[in-house]
């Protein structure tokens, strides 16, 4: 891979995409729903389950309402990007492949100090955990590197290797910007140069106001209950579709509802209407949904059912 210095945020995304495409991953597009992290994309959560091999890479816009700072923070946004790679089974040279991707975006291994620092990953809402590291570049965390051991309460066999790059932080480092809003989104010498802040700053303020103070909590609660009920209803349907007569397990539509419930919980949390004790209960409810969806996925063909 020819090494060139990226000049913009999108350069980094494009470079990572082509690097992982060349490494054999299917380059997918973001999932079209609000999620808290790239892991929620069905391409990771569901595809990590069952025996079938899988390799995908994608950008996932992610939302963490409580991280909103009205666009004023140099390194925190309620909407941000993750770049996600998942390969199942995890290849023996995954660490080397990963380091190659850092070189591709211009991090010179001869000058920088890369470290794999213990970090066990756990997602209570996904009923998932894995072992791995935070990857540090000169003392800064630039990625999470995880070998999935369990998802949705099921042991992962084979094991998937998952890489998550926090794109803003990585880009700020590579591009040399201390204020993320100031970093160029497109080429700095483009006819219409745009910074990250030009694209997102005002939207950050808008969402912060809505997330923290304006969102209708009664409505959010109702939506949460609706999503929860719909998820259960979908999964309770018989496996055989009465219209086509085919076995169609609706794991993914049900999982969409679980994703919705998860995001609604995050919104409720940001509105400050969930007490400490209730928190655990809500997390448990979302986990019950993702577990049920994981069970259902294993009954689909991608999940390993004989076609």
């Amino acid at each position, binding site marked *: 891979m020819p090494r060139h210095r990226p000049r913009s945020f999108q350069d980094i995304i494009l470079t990572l995409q082509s690097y992982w495409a060349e490494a054999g991953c299917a380059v997918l597009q973001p999932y079209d729903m609000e999620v808290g992290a790239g892991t929620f994309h069905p391409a990771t959560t569901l595809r990590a389950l069952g025996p079938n091999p899988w390799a995908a890479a994608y950008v996932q816009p992610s939302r963490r309402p409580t991280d909103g700072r009205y666009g004023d923070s*140099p*390194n925190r946004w309620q909407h941000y990007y993750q770049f996600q790679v998942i390969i199942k*089974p*995890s*290849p*023996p040279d995954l*660490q080397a492949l990963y380091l190659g991707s850092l070189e591709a975006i211009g991090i010179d*291994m*001869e*000058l*920088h*100090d*890369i*470290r*794999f*620092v*213990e970090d*066990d990953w756990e997602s209570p809402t996904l009923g998932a955990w*894995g*072992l*791995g*590291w935070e990857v540090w*570049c*000169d*003392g*800064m965390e630039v990625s999470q590197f995880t*070998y999935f*051991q369990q998802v949705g309460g099921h042991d*992962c*066999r*084979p*094991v998937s*290797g998952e890489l998550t790059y926090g794109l803003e932080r990585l880009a700020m*480092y590579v591009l040399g910007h*201390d204020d993320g809003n100031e970093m160029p989104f497109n080429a700095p010498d483009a006819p219409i140069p745009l910074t990250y802040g030009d694209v997102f700053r005002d939207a950050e303020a808008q969402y912060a106001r809505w997330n923290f103070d304006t969102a209708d909590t009664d409505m959010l609660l109702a939506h949460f209950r609706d999503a929860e009920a719909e998820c259960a209803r979908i999964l309770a349907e018989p496996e055989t579709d009465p219209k086509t007569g085919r076995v169609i397990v609706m794991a993914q539509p049900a999982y969409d509802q679980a994703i919705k419930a998860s995001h609604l919980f995050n919104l409720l949390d940001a509105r400050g209407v969930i*007490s*400490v*004790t209730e928190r655990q209960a809500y997390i448990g409810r979302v986990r019950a949904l993702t577990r049920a969806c994981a069970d259902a996925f294993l009954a689909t063909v991608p999940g390993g059912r004989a076609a």
Partner: protein
Amino acid sequence: MPDLLIELFSEEIPARMQARAAEDLRKLVTDGLVEAGLTYAHAGAFATPRRLALALEGVMERSPDTREERRGPKVGAPEKAVEGFLRGAGVAREALEIRDEKKGQVYVATIHRAGRPAAEIVAEVLERTIRGFPWPKSMRWGTGSLRWVRPLHRILCILTREDGHEIVPLEIDGIAASDVTEGHRFMAPSEIRVTGFEDYAAKLKRAKVILDPAERAEIIRHDAAGLAFATGLEVVEDEGLLREVAGLVEWPVVLMGRIGEAFLDLPPEVLQTSMREHQKFFSVRETSGRITRFVTVANRETADDGATILAGNQRVLAARLADAAFFWQNDLRVAREEKMRPWLDALGSVTFHAKLGSEADRVARIAALAREMAPSVGADPDMAEEAARLAKADLTSEMVYEFPELQGIMGRYYATDAGFPDEVAQAVAEHYAPLGPSDTVPTAPVSIAVSLAEKIDKLTGFWAIEEKPTGSKDPYALRRAALGVIRLLLTNDLRLNLIGDRVFSKADFSHAENEAGLVGPKPEEYGPDLLAFLHDRLKVHLRDEGIRHDVIDACLAMHGNDDLTLLVRRARALSEFLKTDDGENLLQGFRRANNILSQAEEQDGVEYSYGADLKFAETEAERALFAALDSEEPGIEAAMKSEDFTAAMAGLARLRAPIDVFFEAVQINSDVQVVRRNRLNLLSRIRRLCLDVADLTRIEG
């Protein structure tokens, strides 16, 4: 005799697990070899982030041949039994020997086992070790089912002799043992073929890997100190961090950088904690204590001598410290302008325990208790109450939310900035102490009052809801709280009757509401059990001081054992006394008197407790004992009254000689009943005097 070298090469092993893993590898392999009959002369185990290594010198070539005789069934036993025996022993019928024994003839089998070559045994033991390795957390990877801490890539396993080396034949889940390893991930990544341990260690060093963690730690310590010294500064010692950092690098390169001007006014504890927790940096300070620089340890050398690495680290640190400065400024505003009020209010929504209410409830209890106890520890009640009210305020500050380990420390800064007196701020900082057997014990009266109240509230609270520690489970650290109470009382020589002064009852749980209401026992009911718990912790504490458990039992049996300071004074005096010749002999005398008395009392059905009269004494020895008792008794009693146990025991010591003479010269049993009774009553004076000092019947040996 060959040397054995094993290296297990993997992806990065968590730093905190490395030392233990190297030790486990050594133990599992050497135990396995020895069990199989293969001994060795010397073992050394090592760990780096990517490898565990074990080197054994002087391993036997083969395990020795063995011969075992096994007795079987009697001759004439059922055929089935004989067949079973043959199968178990693995010998043929013709090889059985018949031996005459007392009870008749029996079959005896002689089992010969040929020794096995070292390689075969090593292969078996290493496979078992790898498959059963006790990692705190392990994982699978790829399609395999082998578990290791992170993916295992290579197994190096060779036996080295003078004429060359042999690869031990071994394959685990597709990984075949070899004589190959790899150097530093970035600086020397190619394969290295090795012939033995010396060759291995030397080649690794050339490939930028320092195998021995102690050597890496020493390089870091030395280089960091050197860099700091050259600029007139010193590194803040941190052994835990040193061990961790030595486990994060194979080739340590020490770099020193500056902390931005804007952050130098942050409290040193904040700088140190933020740098250690987030960045694993060492703090570097001026002689005044001000922290102005940091030391970071990189894992490689670079062409620019670490300039890029240092610049990157400095930028990350600036971002982190900007957060810390933001918290600090916000917190100071709350402290100065609002006297910490919003934090105190927020404690109401922090649950301490579902059945014991919020942190605010707990603070109210501690404040009331601190106020009540203040006079008995010499503290001003108003101050003690105020300090207790503020003690937990920093828990809801932004800084402590980010760095929980700064609780108390931040509280002191904020209380000072809010204008509270120094004694109050000090108590806020010290009220968690002592946190363990070697932590400093507060000695300022206000600090003592709040610290004691904090711990007693915790203990009585969990006793009231019956959530006591069981076995190894002590989630609320109640043992530590109990030891804290003990050390606070002893160190400050405080006299407090925990039961008698109703200390346990002062913590009021009536407003600790839960849905079902408080249903646990009342202080009168759980008090004795809680006291017994404190006594147990006290025994452990005193055992470390070298005081035997039976000596403590002898003192625990005495009245006033809820005053731990008194209890310990008595135990220390008794322990010293029993170490002397007089003490040992007096104990014998007491036992003899007590045995004779107990027997006589049982036999006669009466208690001989008083009324010994000099006029019935028949012998000189009896009269001498009367005289000695008469002369020592008032002194001993006075000493006991003033709680001078050492003086009381000195008095007892002076009774030793007359008691010895008495037992030598006098036969207790006399045909004259009045003489016998008189002697028994005389013995009871000895018994009573001794038992007033401590319950000597509990002394063992």
